[in-house]
């Protein structure tokens, strides 16, 4: 499954690993209906890294949950690795998930691991669910430890004994053991300190060489810019801008994107940025 070609130059047209078309999700009925996602369309090619940027309430988590089947879409289509999952029931979702094609890394490293289960058992769980034998699962788990720079002696520890950075790496490793084609990561580095953040981002960068498509969900453009091929900006449930990272950052079209770019703390923000941000905010709230 590894490819040496950078994801942005496919030699032949390949089927996208994820294709979302005109996706709509709403909560509540009639008067109390809240539209969370409005006609969102996005396509992820194999091996590419896409960052979905949005603030709290923009619908970014709902988008991830809809793609994973945890939330039902009210309209539109979701195609994962060629399968149209819009109308799937529980059993079909389970079958798809057991293929290990799509995985997820949670934001909170503390709560995404069962506190009473050892690291090894947590890592082996996706494989055991697939029906892999215990010995083989143990062997495959060990193979991935190296990738996330975890030492084998952590295997029989409980999550409570690990640091935040270590836990997040365990969560990433768990998402990789089934060798998925797509991994969605929800704010994977927001809860971490500087050193751990750099380490996780470096690990994720290395994953691209293996042809795994990555979707980063974050509120911070800055943390994603270094690893993403493309950026998609989600604002109030709508995808307002999509493009190559460099283009989106240097030539933002939508005022919200411009505000995002101007808001991300950089080392050399100019005094004029402040005035521009004020103007953009006024424009968006008009």
């Amino acid at each position, binding site marked *: 499954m590894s490819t040496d070609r950078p994801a942005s130059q496919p030699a032949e047209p390949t089927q996208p690993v994820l294709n979302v078309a005109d996706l709509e999700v709403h909560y509540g009925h009639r008067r109390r209906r809240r539209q969370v996602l409005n006609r969102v369309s996005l396509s992820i090619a194999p091996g590419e890294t896409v960052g979905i940027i949005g603030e709290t309430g923009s619908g970014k988590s709902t988008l991830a949950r809809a793609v994973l089947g945890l939330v039902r879409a009210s309209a539109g289509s979701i195609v994962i690795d060629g399968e149209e999952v819009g109308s799937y029931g529980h059993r079909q979702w389970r079958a798809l998930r057991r293929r290990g094609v799509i995985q997820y890394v949670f934001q909170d490293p503390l709560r995404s691991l069962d506190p009473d289960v050892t690291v090894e058992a947590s890592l082996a769980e996706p494989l055991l669910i697939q029906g892999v034998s215990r010995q083989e699962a143990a062997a495959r788990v060990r193979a991935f430890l190296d990738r996330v720079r975890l030492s084998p002696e952590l295997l029989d520890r409980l999550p409570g004994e690990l640091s935040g950075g270590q836990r997040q790496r365990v969560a990433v490793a768990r998402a990789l053991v089934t060798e998925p084609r797509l991994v969605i990561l929800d704010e994977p580095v927001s809860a971490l300190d500087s*050193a751990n953040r*750099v380490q996780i981002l470096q690990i994720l960068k290395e994953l691209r060489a293996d042809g795994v498509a990555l979707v980063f969900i974050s509120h911070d453009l800055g943390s994603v*810019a270094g690893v993403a091929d493309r950026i998609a900006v989600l604002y109030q449930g709508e995808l307002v801008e999509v493009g190559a990272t460099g283009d989106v950052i240097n030539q933002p079209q939508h005022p919200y994107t411009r505000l995002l770019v101007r808001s991300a*703390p950089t080392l*050399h923000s100019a005094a004029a940025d402040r005035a521009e941000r004020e103007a953009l905010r006024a424009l968006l709230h008009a």
Partner: protein
Amino acid sequence: MATLSEKVLTKSARNSKTEQNGSGAEVEDTGATSTTSTTGATRPVRPAAPSTPVLSVRDIRISDQAAGQEIVHGVNFTLTPGRSVGIVGESGSGKTLTCRATLGILPAHFEVTGGSIEIDGQDISGLSSAQWTALRGATISAVFQDPASYLNPSIRVGAQIAEVLKVKKGLKRREARRQAIDLLHAVHLRDPELVYSQYTYELSGGMLQRVLIAAAIAADPRILIADEATTALDVTVQAEILDLLADLRERTGLALVLVSHDLAVVAQLCDEVLVMRQGEVVEQGPTHEVLHNPQHEYTRLLIAEHEQYGLDKFLGTDAVEPAKTDALDTADAVKEDA
């Protein structure tokens, strides 16, 4: 009807007279005529001549008496009105302890075991509890991370700001309410009257932080400490809060101490930067100097993180230093055991 901004501005104008700082007084006068001026006019107050420091921290050392260990090994900085100092460091670097020492709220067993802190020229080491109470809010104030936990969820937020006004300025209920609404306006909240009557659960993180800033500046302090005040917020909201702090600094001459784990946040707002690691200040200097001429390897690491993984890479701004990947690797090796 003197509003907060006017009051604070006249006080600053009084200060500036003693300062012999021409440019400072000039900006103050402009501000006084339009109390609701937004940040359109950017003429930052940077006093050219030295003036009486509002906060001076000299070689402060803080120890954990229970463990018998010195945690903070010598921090030095000085704040004059309108200036801002930034402290960058990870958790455990000692930055929060330093701030708490200046506020007199060190946790149990922690004590200042060396150096001195002076607020407005007064040494705080011998202050009684009553003197501290008088000092807090009126001279030095603070906002922290996680705004929701600093407000009472069963009382409307407006009342909590009004409480500060009643206690610190002795205002009656109606006057306190009016000034509280003025304050909410001063922190750029869109509908101050509405926010006054809302509970914490009805407000977003960014709005709550503004409410806390309003409460913090209610008694017209000269120093505001923001300890990771924007860490829990979305990046656009963080920018709003930082812009607000910059605005307050300009309009009222508020001196700021900004503490963050993110070097860029500090760089955006502060004149001087201190980089702390494990209780020591590993680098200190004017922001421009620290960013362009980092001396310590840790500072270079922080800069490299932004260059490699942040927006700086794309924005084509003047290069700080070519990305030090070897610094990154050695630091990786150091942190492998983490």
